[in-house]
């Protein structure tokens, strides 16, 4: 025991050398380490391998969606990690992913708080992803060598990149990628693993207070739930104990966009606050301080939801800026459509956000209305979108948060 105290004392000493401004209030009886390192019996008690697996599956799925040799059925197999008839399949490049019994689909819109008694919406969201595979197969892949125009799927230049869009100008691989950030990562983190209802379910709180470990594991169930939330952000980090060293570079999902938002001078520090809240919350669980734990949950709800909302507004505004001055110059829409497609995915992801008090910020209907608004300025979707519409959507998002449209725009 004395050894541990010494160990933690060392970390506290290290901490006092760092910048004071963001330092959490000193917590009596809480050993808040410098890195996300928690050990018991000389071994790590942190485990989020399941989250790493799902992030990697999602990476392969998004990457495959951009491949013109892919098919709807192949993408479905990756999404479900089983055949259409429920059989075993090996859809991934990475053998470890094929060996896994996990799937992306099973955790899409699958949180306790939002979907445990809302299976119809859960199914709708799971199926939305699958509908994208169908649309990729019928709209995008056969039109690889067409030049896109209103009502015509095909390719557009975006700088030196080439984008492949639907007849309405939508890049389905971007919709898939960015919608998963909300429907998989944010939903699991905020509405499931960081839900007090989940953390405290069954005898979790009592077991945690008495440090009763899960069968054959080195962690309590509550510790593990907390780590699983952590894993959806940092599960593929170069150093997952100190993930901010490479924040933004470790996946194409939540990690990436925390990095992006943090690199905006208006929001710098957000990555630090998120990591610190995770770390202090985990330390609080170790110390049985549930009030402190819940304070960290409030920070995480607010900051992670901010990331989604800031990017949604950002892409609406970037898309607006990139629309060509000559709206009849169809070859000049590539940058705008790329931004708006990313923005579409972040709008979709707003459904899974909540504020510090835990209130859900966007109902299904509100999100559907925003998306419908984005596509309804004319009969050809993005080709007809008006700049005023993009501003209205942006404002209806930013008005629910503590940032301004202008801060998110650049």
């Amino acid at each position: 025991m004395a050894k541990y105290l010494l160990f933690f004392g060392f970390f506290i000493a290290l901490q006092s050398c760092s910048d004071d401004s963001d330092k959490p209030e000193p917590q009596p009886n809480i050993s808040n380490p410098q890195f996300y390192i928690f050990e018991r019996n000389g071994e790590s008690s942190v485990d989020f391998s399941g989250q790493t697996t799902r992030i990697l599956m999602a990476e392969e799925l998004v990457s495959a969606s951009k491949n013109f040799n892919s098919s709807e059925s192949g993408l479905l197999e990756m999404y479900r990690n089983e055949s259409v008839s429920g059989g075993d399949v090996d859809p991934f490049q990475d053998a470890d992913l094929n060996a896994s019994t996990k799937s992306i689909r099973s955790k899409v819109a699958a949180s306790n708080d939002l979907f445990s008694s809302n299976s119809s919406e859960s199914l709708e969201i799971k199926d939305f992803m699958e509908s994208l595979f169908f649309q990729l197969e019928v709209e995008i892949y056969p039109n690889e060598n067409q030049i896109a125009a209103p009502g015509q799927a095909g390719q557009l230049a975006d700088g030196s990149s080439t984008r492949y869009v639907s007849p309405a100008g939508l890049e389905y691989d971007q919709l898939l990628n960015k919608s998963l950030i909300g429907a998989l990562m944010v939903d699991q983190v905020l509405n499931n693993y960081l839900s007090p209802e989940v953390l405290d379910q069954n005898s979790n709180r009592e077991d945690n207070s008495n440090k009763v470990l899960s069968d054959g594991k080195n962690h309590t169930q509550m510790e593990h739930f907390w780590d699983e939330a952590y894993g959806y952000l940092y599960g593929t980090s170069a150093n997952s104990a100190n993930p901010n060293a490479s924040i933004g570079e470790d996946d194409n999902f939540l990690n990436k966009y925390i990095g992006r938002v943090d690199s905006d001078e208006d929001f710098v520090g957000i990555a630090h606050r998120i990591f610190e809240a995770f770390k202090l919350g985990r330390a609080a669980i170790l110390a049985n301080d549930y009030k402190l734990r819940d304070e960290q949950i409030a920070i995480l709800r607010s900051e992670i939801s901010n990331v989604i909302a800031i990017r949604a507004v950002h892409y609406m505004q970037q898309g607006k800026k990139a629309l060509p001055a000559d709206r009849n110059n169809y070859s000049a829409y590539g940058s705008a459509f790329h931004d708006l497609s990313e923005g579409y995915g972040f709008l979709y992801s707003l459904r899974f956000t909540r504020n510090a008090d835990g209130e859900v910020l966007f109902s299904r209907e509100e999100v559907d209305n925003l998306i419908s608004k984005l596509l309804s300025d004319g009969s050809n979707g993005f080709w007809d979108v008006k700049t005023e519409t993009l501003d209205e959507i942006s404002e209806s998002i930013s008005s629910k948060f503590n940032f301004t449209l202008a801060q998110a725009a650049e």
Partner: protein
Amino acid sequence: MKRGVLIILIPMLFACSEDESPDTQNDNFDRQSMLVNWADNIIIPSYKAYENSLIALQSAKNEFIANPNISSFSELRIKWEEAYLNWQKVSMFQIGMAEQITLRDFTNIYPCDKEEIEMAIVSGNYNLELPSSRDMQGFPALDYLLYGMAESENELLQKLSQTAYSNYLSELVERLLFLSQSVIDNWEGDYHDQFVENLGSDAGSSVNKMVNDYMFYYEKVLRAGKIGIPAGVFSSTSRSDLVEAPYRGDLSKALCLSALNASINFFHGRHYNSNEEGESLKSYLDYLSTVSETQSLSLSIANQFDLSKEKIEGLNADFALQIQTDNAAMLEAYDELQNNVVLMKVDMFQAMNIRVDYVDADGD
């Protein structure tokens, strides 16, 4: 009369805006003379010279296809080189039709995709109008055909004599010419007057657009594309494979210098192929009496251009060799070019009250 009203209106508009930027908008610099000088004495003559060199390339190509031999092949290569050097003098003018058809992207995206090129030639199945075909055409693809797709000159000649290859060669040349002509037709049509009459100082005005295009070109295409990226400024290791005209080898410095000279001449307002100068960014800065530290900003920029040029002239004719043997010299050249990004993109833009209209791409 109309202009009188405009001049009164502009200061009123500006009174409502933020105070931070210097109030130079109501300067009386003759922006139109500058636009006329740019269009009539620089841009259009440069495009014409470029077009002429493509017509010469077209003839050499036709001659080669009719009589493929060492002499016609060598002539073809010479005409390619001349056209490529002339391209560097118009690449920065991505405005009007050139902007609309993204001329630069269809003319000079490198490195080219040699696998795709070989596949296209063998299958005969390709469409050069597609954005995804941009790295299969233009000067970089010709570089591959004329210098890269076989070991020896004889083998190249033999391969290019085959119909599938000569057809592709022909299409590449014809397309370059077609694109350049559509830009010239536009300048000789309505666009000239549109350009010189689009005064004012909003983001869409000709001066603001042209200065932004010039800056974008200098920063991204010249500084980064020709020097910084191959020298490894933006990556963990140097990338000598990313130099311009890699198959020809010893042309990358000449191409870079042609581009830099064109940038310098534009800054000074020098007429095409002449030392005569007209209204320019330099004379505009002098009119505004912008001072940087102790000397005029225009002199600082001009001197910095000279320093950059000196550094680049000292490099190996083949940048790839330079990078492999002494990359530090490449990095020094990059640093000198970078110094002018600061002087122009910050100080000059501020003096002229022009906002940067491009951002660094998101990268995803």
